[in-house]
């Protein structure tokens, strides 16, 4: 079979590396891919957010399965578009990807179904958010509602830092439309663990747990990054 992987980072290289090991697979494409991916698959110059481009390429090459890896095309409905065109696609549809693309949606879902999470409030304008911040305990967490390249979460140590975070997200729009709402939530203390799971919507099967290092420098110093390393045991 012929498989197309959408994306261009380390995650996509890992996916392509795993997919080429399958005896069922005869050809793997990656759009747009990167240097390392080009050594084991055919990279094609179609951008990860180009939904029409991905649909057209998949039709033209008679792709048997498209694996959509990044958050942006999932949130934009790439899987829905592929399915409508009759192409098998792996990844959540737009309505399901909202669990990531709106933090307010995710928090409200957890509250409604009693899934344990930090207590929180959602605000749609900065005046209400800042007035709420005046009577809170610190530190607390300010989050832009939408996708912000992993940078939309700010831990505020005091009122001034929290106010500044709300203003930069909601007024200066540093994350664009992702900042049309903010979630302000309780700061939790503990060890962080990541769990990935496969699910078909009815059954859920977890993978193995992992932990990551988000800060740029040793001993968790420096700025937050997309991740400087990770381990699994």
């Amino acid at each position, binding site marked *: 079979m012929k498989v197309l992987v959408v994306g261009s980072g380390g995650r996509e290289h890992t996916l392509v590396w795993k997919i080429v090991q399958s005896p069922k697979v005869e050809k793997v494409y990656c759009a747009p891919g990167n240097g390392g991916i080009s050594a084991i698959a055919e990279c094609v110059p179609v951008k990860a957010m180009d939904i029409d481009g991905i649909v057209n390429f998949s039709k033209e090459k008679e792709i048997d399965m498209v694996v959509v890896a990044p*958050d942006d095309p999932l949130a934009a409905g790439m899987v829905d578009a592929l399915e409508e065109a009759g192409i098998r696609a792996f990844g959540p549809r737009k309505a399901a990807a909202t669990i990531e693309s709106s933090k307010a949606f995710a928090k409200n879902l957890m509250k409604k179904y009693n899934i344990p999470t930090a207590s929180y409030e959602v605000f749609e304008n900065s005046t209400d958010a800042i007035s709420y911040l005046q009577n809170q305990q610190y530190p607390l967490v300010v989050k832009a509602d939408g996708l912000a390249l992993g940078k939309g979460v700010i831990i505020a140590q005091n009122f001034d830092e929290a106010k500044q975070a709300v203003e930069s997200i909601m007024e200066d729009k540093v994350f664009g439309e992702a900042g049309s709402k903010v979630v302000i939530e309780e700061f939790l203390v503990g060890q962080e663990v990541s769990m990935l799971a496969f699910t078909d919507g*009815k059954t*859920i099967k977890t993978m*193995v747990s992992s932990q990551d290092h988000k800060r*740029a420098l040793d001993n968790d110093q420096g700025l937050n990054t997309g991740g400087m390393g990770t381990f699994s*045991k």
Partner: protein
Amino acid sequence: MTKGLIPEVWERSPSRIYTEEIDKYCMEKIYKPTIEAMEKEGRKFKGVLYFGLIITKDGPKVLEYNARFGDPETQVVLPRLNTDIIDIFDAIIDERLDEIEISWNDNACVCVIMASGGYPKEYKTGYEISGIEDAERDANIVVFHAGTKREDGKYYTAGGRVLGVTAMESNLDQAIKKAYEGVGKIKFQDMHYRKDIGIK
């Protein structure tokens, strides 16, 4: 790498943080309820769901969900997967995930990101990278590329996070040591990496 970097005794190993008891609790209180909630909301979730958890004194809580494989978590999770990933993807698309067995190996896996100097702020790209092949000569090391381009058989930096040097060994100490052996063979101008990956 610097000697004495790796503690003799792990203060807290990751397998002890995410215990079987915590796993059971999360399955009943977090994982299953989340997919049931999504179905009830008319938003059936098919794919990979990422749970960012924090283990508090009151038990595990959800920090965030991602609707996809995490990056760089995927780099240490998929090398431990024994099952053909295409069989899993097919089963999910056809909604018969309950019918397949998914098996994992018991190894430890460590991924050290090599980044461009300056990341996550401003950085330069276009520097030639050397030593990738040398590092990958070891069967337990694989170098996953994040921000690279290839021209005339040579690799050049093309992003903030450049490479993820990944090692798999039977235990975490060995995997850390091996990953940094790989890192030591790779060079590009202004490269930056953390020296404490795997230690929490």
